[in-house]
């Protein structure tokens, strides 16, 4: 049976530079990060180059993406949240296209590596802390003190709030990482069942049809998951940024 973990292996493709003893290669991960950025560029710049008053299909896609992210920010963080629009939009498109490209066979899923998702989650986490302290000073720490809590349990509540705040980047990053990892392992396992049973002749072919159907169904599910996880990551980003904007609530 094919190793379902092999697909997550980082492979050096092209050696680029040598800094001291470490070499910088164009890896498969790097290639598909660049592809994700390029697709975003084509979607947002290539299709809007005409600046049509009445949008065509492709420009509509770009506009729908724009409005989708803008509405998400407005509904969770209010109009002030729009100052983080470029960050949120970059996160959404990067994760969405990284996830979607990963479903294509023989590609690499950038977001199936914890170091990538953790970096993005930490970027959000640090943005929240830095902006929160910058705009509210020490008032930012009101975030940990909810209103209307009796004095005698307040220390516990504050402790819980701090722990939950600090664990945010973990849940934020692991959710995306684990979803992409698990989905791709499942796909690979079912796909290897198809190949394995296919070698057993006519009976095997009949038996292989079942996992084949499963692979098709799971691929459809993975497309949903790819979109959903990008949405969830972005939505949580907006909710966390709302804390930096309005820590009093």
């Amino acid at each position, binding site marked *: 049976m094919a190793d379902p973990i092999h697909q997550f*292996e980082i492979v050096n493709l092209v050696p680029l530079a040598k800094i001291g003893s470490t070499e910088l290669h164009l890896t498969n991960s790097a290639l598909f990060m660049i592809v994700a*950025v390029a697709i975003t560029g084509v979607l947002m710049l290539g299709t809007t180059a005409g600046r049509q008053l009445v949008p065509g299909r492709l420009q509509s896609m770009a506009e729908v993406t724009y409005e989708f992210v803008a509405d998400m920010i407005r509904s969770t963080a209010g109009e002030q949240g729009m100052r983080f629009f470029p960050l949120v939009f970059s996160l959404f498109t990067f994760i969405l296209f990284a996830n979607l490209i990963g479903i294509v066979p023989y590609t690499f899923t950038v977001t199936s590596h914890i170091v990538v998702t953790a970096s993005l989650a930490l970027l959000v986490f640090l943005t929240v802390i830095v902006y929160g302290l910058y705009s509210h000073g020490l008032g930012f720490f009101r975030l940990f003190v909810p209103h209307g809590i009796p004095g005698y349990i307040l220390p516990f509540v504050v402790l819980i709030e701090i722990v939950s705040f600090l664990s945010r980047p973990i849940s934020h990053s692991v959710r995306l990482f684990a979803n992409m990892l698990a989905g791709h392992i499942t796909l690979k396992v079912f796909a290897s069942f198809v190949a394995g049973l296919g070698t057993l002749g006519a009976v095997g072919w009949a038996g292989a049809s079942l996992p084949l159907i499963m692979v098709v169904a799971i691929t459809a599910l993975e497309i949903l998951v790819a979109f959903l996880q990008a949405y969830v990551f972005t939505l949580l980003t907006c909710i966390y940024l709302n804390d930096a904007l309005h820590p009093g609530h």
Partner: protein
Amino acid sequence: MAQPTQATTEHAPASGHGGGFPPFKAETYGSQLIWLGLCFVVLYVMVAKLALPRMASILADRRARIDGDLAEAVRLKGEADAAVATYEKALADARNRAHTIASETRERLARESEAHRKSVEADLARQLTEAEKTIAAGKTAAMTNVRGIAVDAAGAIVAQLVGKAPSQAAAAAAVDHVLKR
């Protein structure tokens, strides 16, 4: 099916990497972080400096165009309403004027025909009185003639019967006496 051989060849480099779970291999983190940093900065700059401002301006232009068109439509509708109001007012004025002219004409004609009728009636009445006068005169004249003839006839009848003519005055008195009866 070449899958089993491919599977073994696939497995070989995996173990060649020293096994382990790829996402937890710390030696790959450096390169991934460098590439992620590069890509994300490029993406962020592209999105923040080019894509979003362009998209915002496209949407703002469209919003402005739609608002402008709506305002223009409202203005034109106002003009059309004003034109309709003017037209209806003109129509009402014309109708009123027509009404006034019609009633004035009717009254004038009625007055004229009344005057005409009165003058004709007066004329007729005058002619009637004149005719009556003529008739009365004629009648009086006729009566006078009848009396003269009667007196003569009475005188002649009495002369025939009695053989002697009565006096003119006696015959006249007798005729008057009969005529009065």
